[in-house]
């Protein structure tokens, strides 16, 4: 409600500005006699915000729609992309992938372009950011056909996060600190086991995290520490981490592939996923049958990712078909070994490597979405001040 009022406030200020500009236009061009360029536009004040997404079903075929996603989503050459090609074969709708940075950056862009989006469907807004997406009107609510007719079963814990069908829960996992097993073994150092350990001077300069303002795992890790230390205590913990030489980068790809020792970087611990270890087994060259990286379970925060139809898409029907497909078994079964997340579709069998090596913590941390929503930007501001100051 307050959001509507504030948007209307913005709109009326817009017309004040237009009026001023028009007045100046008239004044400046006093030598020209007639100009009624901008007067007609007031009538457009009636455009509704958040209008219900009713559009006539379109005939599809030969259409191309754009899937906006984060930078760890493969653009080509994987079985995930093959699945999208299968979607094109079945429906005649081609899917183009547009990478828009890490999830935080992607959502910021989506907020600024809400109503006139960069694509048609967005993949990868997570539970830490979902409320911002909803408040900013990024998505057109749509309940996927499979959920409506019961052909797709998704855990209530996930669907209850989107009671009005704001977006579809497509995958979940845990954001956890990973460590390079070999690196610690070589130095005869026991890897840390708790969040508190990370601030121990014995582990100085050994952790790289993502900036919570730009990256969703970064935000999830911040929330994990808030879960542990509380609204009043997390600042002191981060001061200690800062004093202990924590490194901050902008995105997960950068943290994992450019800074983590296992991928050739200088830092032996990184904020990544509970399912990163199986990735290391699968991509191992030469092949190996144990994971070179481990997970510190105490640091894990539950992350649920969503996909939704972007408000303002030119192809709402095709976009909805894609969302239906994204929670379908065919696509969902490709998620574990490509994005290293758990599918939300319960009919999908997990691949063996995944079962063997992925870490599902006994208790994963989480925070009430309403609490996250009310505090997110304050926390990020405070965190920035404290850690990057």
């Amino acid at each position: 409600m307050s959001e509507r009022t504030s948007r209307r406030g913005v709109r009326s200020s817009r017309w004040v500005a237009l009026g001023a500009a028009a007045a100046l236009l008239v004044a400046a061009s006093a030598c020209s006699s007639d100009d009624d360029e901008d007067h007609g536009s007031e009538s457009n004040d009636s455009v509704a915000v958040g209008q219900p997404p009713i559009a006539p079903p379109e005939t599809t075929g030969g259409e191309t729609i754009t899937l906006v996603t984060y930078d760890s989503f493969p653009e080509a050459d994987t079985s995930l992309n093959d699945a999208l090609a299968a979607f094109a074969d079945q429906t005649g709708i081609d899917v183009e992938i547009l990478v828009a940075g890490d999830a935080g950056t992607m959502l910021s862009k989506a907020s600024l372009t809400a109503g006139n989006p960069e694509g048609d469907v967005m993949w990868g807004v997570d539970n830490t950011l979902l409320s911002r997406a909803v408040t900013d009107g990024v998505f057109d609510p749509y309940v996927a056909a499979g959920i409506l007719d019961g052909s797709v079963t998704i855990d209530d814990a996930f669907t209850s996060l989107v009671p009005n069908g704001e977006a579809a829960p497509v995958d979940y996992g845990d954001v956890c600190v990973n460590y390079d097993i070999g690196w610690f073994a070589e130095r005869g150092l026991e890897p840390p086991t708790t969040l508190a350990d990370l601030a121990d001077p014995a582990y100085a300069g050994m952790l790289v995290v993502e900036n919570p303002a730009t990256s969703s795992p970064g935000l999830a890790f911040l929330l994990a520490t808030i879960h542990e230390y509380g609204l009043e205590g997390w600042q002191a913990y981060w001061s200690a981490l800062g004093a202990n030489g924590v490194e901050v980068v902008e995105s997960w790809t950068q943290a994992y592939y450019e800074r983590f020792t296992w991928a050739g970087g200088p830092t032996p611990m990184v904020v990544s996923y509970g399912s990163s270890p199986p990735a290391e087994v699968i991509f191992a060259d030469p092949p190996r049958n144990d994971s070179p990286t481990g997970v510190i379970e105490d640091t894990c925060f539950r992350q649920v990712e969503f996909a939704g139809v972007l408000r303002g898409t030119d192809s709402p029907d095709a976009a909805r078909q894609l969302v239906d497909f994204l929670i379908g078994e065919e696509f969902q079964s490709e998620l574990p070994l490509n994005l290293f997340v758990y599918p939300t579709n319960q009919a999908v069998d997990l691949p063996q490597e995944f079962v063997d090596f992925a870490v599902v913590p006994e208790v994963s941390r989480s925070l009430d979405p309403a609490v996250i929503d009310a505090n997110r930007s304050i926390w990020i501001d405070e965190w920035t001040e404290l850690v990057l100051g």
Partner: protein
Amino acid sequence: MNRLPRWLVAALAIVPVVALAVFYVWPFTTLVVEALSGTAIADTLGRPQTWEVVWFTLWQAVVSTAVTITVGLVPAYLVARFAFRGRSLLVGLLTATFVLPTVVMGAAFLALLPDSLDRTVWAVIGAHVAFNVAVVVRVVGSLWEHLPTDMEYAAATLGASRWHVVTRVSLPLVRPAITAAATIVFLFSFTSFGVIRILGAPGTRTIEVEVWRRATQLGDIGGATVLALLQLTLLAVVLTWSTIAQRTHSRALALRPVAPLRRARTRAERSFVSIAAWMTALIALVPLTALVVRSFSTPDGWSTNAWTNLGRTDVRPGLRVGIDPVDAIVNSLINAAWATLFAVVIGGVASLAITAAKRHGRLIDGGLMLPLGTSAVTIGLGMLITFDVAPVDWRASWWLVPVGHALVAVPFVVRVCVGVLRSVDPAMTDAAATLGAPPVRAWRATVVPYLWRPLGVGAALAAAISLGEFGATSFLSRSGGETLPIAIEQLLGRTGTTLQAQGYVLATMLAAVTVVLVVVIEQAQSSRDRAVGT
């Protein structure tokens, strides 16, 4: 009287006036209204962080200015007083540095400095100094060379040492020029954006960068507009103060056309000239060289990989980072072509209108200069928050970025053209009229032909500006539509050496294209000056 009909003048004026009203005045007013309404103003001004950013912006600008003036006075004196081999080359080199896109200068310092100094305030100040030494040389140098040498000789005859002559006689005399140069350098450093985006750490943010961060990363549009307005207010205060200061310190000087340059005579003078000339050349050359070198260097030695494999940004099979350097080059060229077209059409028509409309012309002229006084970030933010509702929801329009660029470029096109058009001898138009040509035809035959040449220069300027534009583009470009400066910033923000090297490749290309464009402009300008002179 031989006056152009009012309808023609009005028709000419309507183009720039509408463009200015729609793309500048309206967004700017939206921004101000947005900033002043609601609670954003109280929230933003009440946040201690805001004042930390303001304080940082201020002190780094003051230090940058002080160091630039100190460093720049030596080459200013050198160029104003001495004839030596390579003098014009040195001046050209400084000019080339000054016109480099801010992102390129940031990249050059990132390439130059060791990791420990990267992303510190010292790197930022270093880049500001290297950038702006040219301003001091141009502004102070040009007054200095017109300063009569008699007083210096008189002081020397009375026994003053060379040091005393410079500090007690010359410097006080060029003080107004120093104030003017300091003001310009301060403005550039205060509103620094590209350099800080590349070299700054989160703790070293100018107001300009904070505006961008709040709007695009935190989604705090209200706070961003308040900061943009705060910056404009602070700048207005500084400008007013500087104008007053220049007025109180100005004094009548018996200026000569140009005091003759002389060769260094004594041994001390000779070594001063060669040391000063080399030091200045190094300031300009070293960062650029570092840029080129880094584009060829990898942890395993020299390699042309980054050049030949430009565009391969895979971090894992199938997984790219979403930045395609080759696309960025294409996007930049397309944007620059359109921006140039827009700027040339609007600027050309505006120039005709300004010279034809006489009194009203000055209004249009002043109006078109306004975007120059507003930071590019403010322009981008204003456009972003204005053009996002139907029927003006233009966020996805391909032409929005080029229009933003054109807005920044038009003032330059107008300056170049109006100067030439004003110098057209009215006697020619009168002669045409005497021979029976109606006013419009006389004007078309005698005035309009003079537009083409300066318009060509303006086009080159507009292209250079568009290619390097970063502030407004940071707000307006969409995923997949990244321009060169945006791609450079993103690539250099990564830590992987492959990606960084590709960022340096792009920065080298951008630097080269800009320098070529500027050489073309300077050649065209100087050949015109010669033509006018004969």
